[in-house]
């Protein structure tokens, strides 16, 4: 597998590993049967993600994209974070091998899933933002 140096860096030295205790939001996607699961926990203050941590069961690119995605959303406003796409994460990692692109969806979905729970809990879903959660209904693996 030809991974970029950035992928290898985020795989070998993943940032934001762990679980935030008393997290404000948390989301888990994927399943062990399919070979990847990501759990993300967020600390949110004043509509801004002040901390993000992840745990991932999965291949190299699943772990690297988890690491990069949490980096990318830290310090972001919630609606900015919601606009995070797997493509952006992959680009930030210097690209992923084509057959691995689907793995990057896992991170996007996990972040969205955490935010959806948070939005629901805080009644933040509006007509303007609800489409951002659309993709969540699909299983990440259907999107290959």
């Amino acid at each position, binding site marked *: 597998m030809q991974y970029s140096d950035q992928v290898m860096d985020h795989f070998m030295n993943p940032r934001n590993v762990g679980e935030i205790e008393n997290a404000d939001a948390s989301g888990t996607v994927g399943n062990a049967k*399919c*070979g990847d699961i990501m759990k993300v926990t967020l600390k949110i203050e004043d509509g801004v993600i002040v901390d993000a941590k992840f745990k991932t*069961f999965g*291949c*190299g690119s699943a772990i690297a994209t988890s690491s990069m995605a949490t980096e990318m959303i830290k310090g972001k406003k919630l609606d900015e974070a919601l606009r995070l796409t797997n493509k952006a994460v992959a680009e930030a990692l210097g690209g992923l091998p084509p057959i691995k692109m689907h793995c990057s969806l896992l991170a996007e979905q996990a972040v969205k899933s955490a935010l959806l729970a948070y939005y629901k809990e805080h009644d933040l879903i509006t007509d303007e933002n609800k489409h951002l959660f659309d993709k969540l209904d699909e299983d990440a693996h259907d999107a290959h």
Partner: protein
Amino acid sequence: MQKPKRVYLDHAATTPVRKEVLDVMLPLFSEQFGNPSSFYQTGQEAQRLLTQARQTVADCIHADPREIFFTSCGTESDNWAIKGTAEALKKKGRHIITSQIEHHAVLHTCQTLEKQGFDVTWLPVDTNGLVDPEAVRQAIRPDTILVSIMMANNEIGTIEPVETIGSICREQKILFHTDAVQAAGSVPIDVRTLGADMISFSAHKLYGPKGVGALYVRKGVRLPNLLDGGAQENNRRGGTENVAGIVGFAHAFKLAVSEMPVTSQRLTMMRNDFIKSVMAAIPDTRLNGHPVQRLPNNVNFSFKYIEGESILLMLDHFGYECSSGSACTSGSLDPSHVLLGIGLPHEIAHGSLRVTLGRETEAEDLSRMVGDLSKIVARLRELSPLYPADRQQTDLNQHV
């Protein structure tokens, strides 16, 4: 950072060509390059080498040289044996028996035949990967034309009871094919007692070159050609012979057979030490495949809570080259059919690691690897949402 020493531990995938083998091949590319079908000296010299190579391969399995047909790989041999038999006997019957853990070359070939109206019985295996010979007997029907069971499995190393299966097939007068691609050169093969009608071989698994294989076809077995063409291989496989490759294959096979007692013992000991050390060092580890009835060089673990590709990637980073049955490695969605075949749940199968030793493997590389592997597994488990934070050392074998 200094580059780590590369330790190749994927000899089931392919092996380097041995120096002695390359030496006999070298003059055959640009100097003695004749076409064995040609009339003049250069051609006849090639013909002589070919004849000699056929004799050598025949000797390795106690066959007659007229029963040896060179092919381009193990896959071609498997396809030829199975599709050829199907074609030859389709008027007699359309039922084939095979196992659930065959190599893709057999598996996908049988699936192709299924699409063409053949009926395939996919025999299950036990948790060690063994096919039950009695199950073969029971699966035989009046319209059964072929049984194809591999001699040794490429992922978990389990050695199948092919002699018993062979004698059942003989008794029932059913043709028996066995894929010996992994077994050849590692375990003794004697066609006089094996009871197989067709046996597949591949050179690159036994320190010969890639792109060469053979099919043993017992005298009297009718097998239509897969590759029609010139009169090569006694009119049964067209195509100008890959003389260099064939000569290399024969030499490699001969060396492997003559060194087998020593190599086999050495590898088995190293393998057992390695298995013991890893099981002791890393909790929640399962050894896949048969505990003793396995290829001398094969090790296959499942590490619970983590995924195989990420193990490979870290190992590669540290210089160890191995393989996995994880879906992510192959680019497919399901983990290895072999690991599922021995009853592993998907999530455990995903976390598998195959380590296959070889001639150049040294004990110290393996003992160093135990340490590195422990660290890698621990690191990945720390990353894993499945790993219970309060996990104590337990034996995964009790859980699966």
